Every structure is written in structure tokens, then in C-alpha cells.
């Protein structure tokens, strides 16, 4: 008997491919928001399954804060060369140079909040009516209620009170001019699902996901990669530790965990045993209990 559609990873994969094809069918100018993290890399694999041997009906869009891990950027460029699809890069540095945002100063300065402006500008310039993202509902409480097709107003804002009901597998992508839709094909996946899928599909990832020796400093109780953009001073003690990163964000806000999981099988075991959820290692959510909800309303991914 053919068991191809009986396992949950196949069910999740089939749903994600279905959603990507709905985007292609319903929108004029979609784009795939590519962060260089494992979730958006998984989206790229799903898009290959949805549209090959044809081309993707959308470009990839990367918002580069200028503070990315160098490993992420080189991974991105290698991947684009391999898949032969179009990449559009929005630079936070450009938004700073144009005076649209002001760079934070001090030890905890981060460009994480600034990238929302660059993202919205890039969407406006490209006239994108749908942006595919790799967010998952298990990441955070506010995300648990977000739709798979999530409409943003002309200011990029999410209004949790005006969400459209999503019935069966029918997604309503109708929008007014100026609005756009964020689409989350892997909404129903958990962190562990993504890792199991990456293992099953043998998907390559940036090396920082795997345990490696690295210079780190301790900031607010978390291990951060030692880098110029962290505005280090003599109080910051640089140590050499065996670490890996559970998410790939800006260097200023992505904390490392100590680990010796240098292969995917060990990472999966580690996640099963570990008692810190993924976003727990993202300092940007720590500000307040409602942090994610506030940022989403402002147009964050």
C-alpha cells in the first residue's frame, strides 16, 4: 500500500505547497520574504516542490540589517546561485542613510526594530501584494491567532480584531489597493516539525545552526556572538565557547545556546530534551509580555 499521504509531515508539506500555489494563483506580484533562517529555507524547498520544473512565480526578498551573521549571507548567495531564482535585497543601511530611521546607540543598540521600515519600503517599491513568510503559530501566543492569509493595511499594520475567518482550505486573498497580505504556509508546523522535515529532505542550513567554537560575550544573562555591531567595551569579557544558534536573526538580538549538537540528529534530540522554547533565545521578545503583538501591529514579519 502506498503510505505517501498518511504521515503528518506529508500532510503539513501538502498543505504548505497548496498555500504557495494559492498565492501564485491569487496575486499579481507576490514575494517570498527570505531571512536566511531555517524556516525560510524550508519555504524555498517547499516552493521548489510546488513549482518545479517551472520557475518560482515570485522573487525572494531579503531585508539585510547589515548586522547579519556572515555565515547567513554566504549561505544565501550560494543558495540563490543553486536555485537560479531572483533575489531582491532591502538594506537597513539605506533607510539610515536616507534619514528614514535613526540608528540606536549604546550597548543594547539593535537594528532589529529598524528593519520594519526597510521592509515596508521594499514592499512598496516592488509593489508586492503578497509576502510569504516563515512564521509559525507555535512560536508565540499572538501568532497562534494569526491567519494563514493575514491582511495588512496600507501602513503594514495587522489588526487582530479585523481578521477574516478562514474556513476549510479556502483562503480569501482579495485586497484593496495599497494593502498587502502576509502569507504563512508553515503556520501549522512546530519547531520540531521543521527540524524533522529538514532532516528528511536533507536540506542544507547555515553553519551557525550547528555547534561550533565561537567568541562570545554575556549580555543580560544571554550568550551573544562577539561582533563589532554589539558595541563591545572593556566590561565585555570575550570567551571561547562551544555554541549554536537556534534562530538566525540579527547578531545584536540572537542569543547562542551552549551545545555540542553538531549534526541534525543531535539537534533534534536536543530540542526534544530542551526546556527553552525557540523564541526564548530572542531578546526582542523579552521586553514585555505583549511584545510580539505590538510589533506585529506595526508591520513586523
Amino acid at each position, binding site marked *: 500500500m502506498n503510505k505517501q499521504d*498518511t504521515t503528518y509531515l506529508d*500532510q503539513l508539506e501538502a498543505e504548505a505547497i497548496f498555500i504557495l500555489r494559492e498565492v501564485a494563483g491569487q496575486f499579481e506580484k507576490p514575494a517570498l520574504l527570505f531571512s536566511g533562517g531555517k524556516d525560510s529555507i524550508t519555504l524555498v524547498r517547499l516552493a521548489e*516542490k510546488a513549482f518545479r*520544473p517551472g520557475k518560482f512565480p515570485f522573487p525572494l526578498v531579503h531585508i539585510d540589517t547589515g548586522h547579519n551573521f556572515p555565515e547567513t549571507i554566504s549561505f544565501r548567495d550560494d543558495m540563490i546561485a543553486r536555485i537560479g531564482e531572483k533575489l531582491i535585497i532591502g538594506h537597513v543601511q539605506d533607510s539610515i542613510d536616507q534619514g528614514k530611521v535613526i540608528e540606536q546607540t549604546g550597548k543594547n543598540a539593535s537594528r532589529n526594530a529598524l528593519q520594519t521600515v526597510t521592509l515596508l519600503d521594499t514592499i512598496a517599491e516592488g509593489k508586492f501584494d503578497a509576502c510569504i513568510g516563515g512564521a509559525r503559530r507555535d512560536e508565540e501566543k499572538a501568532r497562534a491567532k494569526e491567519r494563514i492569509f493575514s491582511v495588512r493595511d496600507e501602513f503594514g499594520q495587522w489588526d487582530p480584531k479585523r481578521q477574516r475567518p478562514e474556513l476549510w482550505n479556502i483562503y480569501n486573498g482579495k485586497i484593496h489597493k495599497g494593502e498587502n497580505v502576509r502569507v504563512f504556509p508553515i503556520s501549522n508546523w*512546530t519547531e520540531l516539525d521543521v527540524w524533522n522535515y529538514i532532516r528528511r529532505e536533507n536540506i542544507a542550513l547555515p553553519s551557525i545552526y550547528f555547534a561550533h567554537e565561537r567568541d562570545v560575550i554575556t549580555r543580560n544573562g544571554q550568550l551573544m556572538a562577539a561582533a563589532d555591531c554589539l558595541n563591545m567595551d572593556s566590561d565585555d569579557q570575550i570567551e571561547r565557547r562551544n555554541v549554536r544558534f537556534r534562530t538566525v536573526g540579527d547578531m545584536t538580538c540572537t542569543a547562542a545556546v551552549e551545545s555540542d549538537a553538531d549534526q541534525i540528529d543531535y539537534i533534534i534530540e536536543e530540542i526534544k530534551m530542551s526546556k527553552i522554547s525557540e523564541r526564548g533565545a530572542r531578546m526582542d521578545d523579552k521586553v514585555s509580555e505583549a511584545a510580539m503583538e505590538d510589533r506585529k501591529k506595526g508591520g513586523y514579519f
Partner: protein
Amino acid sequence: MIKCLRPQWKTAKKGDIFNMDLLKFFTAGSVDDGKSTLIGRLLYDSESILADQLEALQQSNRKNDDGTIDLAILTDGLKAEREQGITIDVAYKYFQTDKRKFIIADTPGHIQYTRNMVTGASNSDLAIILVDARNGVVEQTVRHSFIVSLLELKHVVVCINKMDMVDFSEDTFNKIHKTYSEIALKLQLKQVTYIPVSALKGDNIVNRSQNMSWYTGKSLLDHLETIEVNEDIKSAQARMPVQWVIRPQTDELHDYRGYAGRVLSGSFRLNDQITVLPSGIRSEISKIETNMQELDEVHSGTSVTLHLKDNIDIGRGDILVNSTHEPIVSQSIEADLCWMDTKPLDTSILYLLQHNSKVTKCKIRDILHKVNINTLEKIETDTFQLNDIGRIVIRTAEPLAFDLYQENKLNGGAILIDPRTNLTVGALMFRASEE
């Protein structure tokens, strides 16, 4: 330091993960019934809460009267909800055990959130209906059960909750069981399971209760882990709406033309005769591709690319079906409607109807009745307000190829969109004419 325990890794585990399937269920009940507590308890007792979430939970100042953690906080997402202490939307929660992966659609139970419940039910295989053991079957139990029958959920679990408040009385359980059986009969709910629980104390949620030795059935989780679902959609007739046409138009793939979509129901095999609807043109399947591999056969739920022997003009909005069992093709359709917008239904305007990949204009030709969802009485009406449910007749601008909802949910459901606001304003379930 998080130590990775290499000796504990066994390759045998790989197999377990890949043989697990998915169960989607929704919970109907109000805050007072302890619905959020029940979900919190399922997550907590199945060890699906991570340490930092637990820490946030413990730091929160919401506690039960006896000082234990209020597990309901786990499912209350939005700020406004935290302030009001109620759930106002559909929140999706995930957990998995060794046997299954679960997606919970947590929906509010108050009458003003009927539309959210309809949404949650449309995305579920099974419904959990909560009844407060102290109050027994009440008006909202009937309402929730009506929605379950309207959305044709085949599996229902009635959790009689707060058994700790009635001294774990078998007699109370039996009385509620009997009353509910009559409702189930009236609503034609066939597979109903009754479980006495205490979500607050954990009785019969994950572990069998020590306090109710008279109950010999399964715990809730055990039941959820073992019940068979989705049989009806697998055995339904083969349907695949076309979402997208793959045409690389490169030199080496000059003639490649693949119809991309997800098999809604049934199975397609190589050389099957198929009909393209609504045009009615027939052809045969010449190639089945999924995940860039060729297959002889493909089943419901799979995203696939089909190729046909003949070169036919097919695009998004068309549906490929098994020629031996074609669906209904019509422009005049009777349907149950759940109205989901604050603006009432306007029979003078054209709405958009979205049925799988097809979008067409439509007009509401006739309103047959609406239903008082607390008493199940049919009432005459000339409009639908938010949360109203009833029977209408629609006329579509283009013919629709559909099945009756009770025979094939995925090809028998559609949404209405208000072209002025682009909002999803109605859920439609196609029915056979009552006349």
C-alpha cells in the same frame, strides 16, 4: 549547558515520527465550562509546555483560588483578551504524543462568537463539547451541537467537566448522558463518546481518574490518540481543483504542461478517465507527479501535478474529476449560510463566491428560513445578521462543479466575499433542495 545525550539517540525513533498522523479537533464551550483549562491541562499533562512558557505562566498574577497555576492562560493570546478575561478568536495550539500530532482550534463559546466556532469546526475532524456537570445540558450545549452537526463533524466527544464539584457522581454523569443522547439523535450525530472529567484536577484528561472507578472508558487523550478519522474524505470521489498551470516553456521542456493542485478527495490513477469541469471535456491522466517524482496513484490530501493525454485549455478555477462519478454542475444552488459580518446580508447586491480555486459573482435569490440556534426552530426572515444561520438559494454567474456538503465537505463548502470590503462574510454548505 544543554548537553546533547548522544547515547539516547536511537535510529529506531525515526520510524515512529514518520508513521504518526495528524488529528485536528476543536473545543466548544464557554470560559465558565472550563474550556481553556481543559486545553491547558492537555498541554500541561502531556508535557507540551516548554520551560520559558511555564516560567511566564508562573510569573503571571492569575491564579486559581487554591493558588495553583491558572492553566487557561496558555490559550489566551491577545492583549484585549487578557484584559477582558475571555477568548474572542480562534487560537491554534499544537502538541504531540508518541502516537499522534494534534492541532487544537480553540474557539469561544458565547453566542456572539458563533462565526468563530463555525470557522474552528470547518477546520476540524473532531469536536469536544464541554458540559458543566453542575448545570447539565444547557442552551449553549444545544447551540454548539447544532454547529457540529451543521459542519458535519463525524466525531463528537462530550466531556462532562467539573466532576469534582459533584462528588464524581455516576448518577449525575448518567443523567447528562441520557439528556444529551436525545439531542444527538435529533441532530443526527452518530459517533458520540461521553467522558466524565475534571480539567482543573486532571481526572480522565491524560490519566484515568482514581476518583471515578465506575467509569471504564478511555481517558480523553487516549481516545484522541486512537480514534480513526478522515475515512469519508478518502473514500469520496476523486476531485482536484486546478490551482496553477506549470509551463516552464524552456527549450528542453517545451511541451511540458502540468496542472498543479491538491487532491481534495478520493484517488487518481494513471490512465484514469477524467472530466474537466465546468467545460465537460474528457481526457486521460498521462502522468502523476508529486515532489518531482512520478507516481502511479495519488490520494486525497496530496499536492500533486497531473498531466493529461490531450492538450486542453485548462486554467485556475477548473476542477478535474473522475468521469465515472461527476459532481453536480449548476448555477442555482441551495445552501446553509452562516453570516459572519457585522453588516447584514444585502440581497440587492452581488457577492463573490469562492469555491476552492473558483471565484464567481453570485446573487442571493431567496432566503428560505433561519434557525434559532438555541432551540433549533426554523424562523421566517428576510435578512441575516451577524452569526445568523439558515437556508438560502443562490444563483451564480458561472456554473459551479460541486458536491453536496454531507457527501464531500471539501467540494461542498464555499465562502461569500463582500466586494465592497473584501471581507469574508459568509460560510456556505451546499445542500440538496428541501422541496
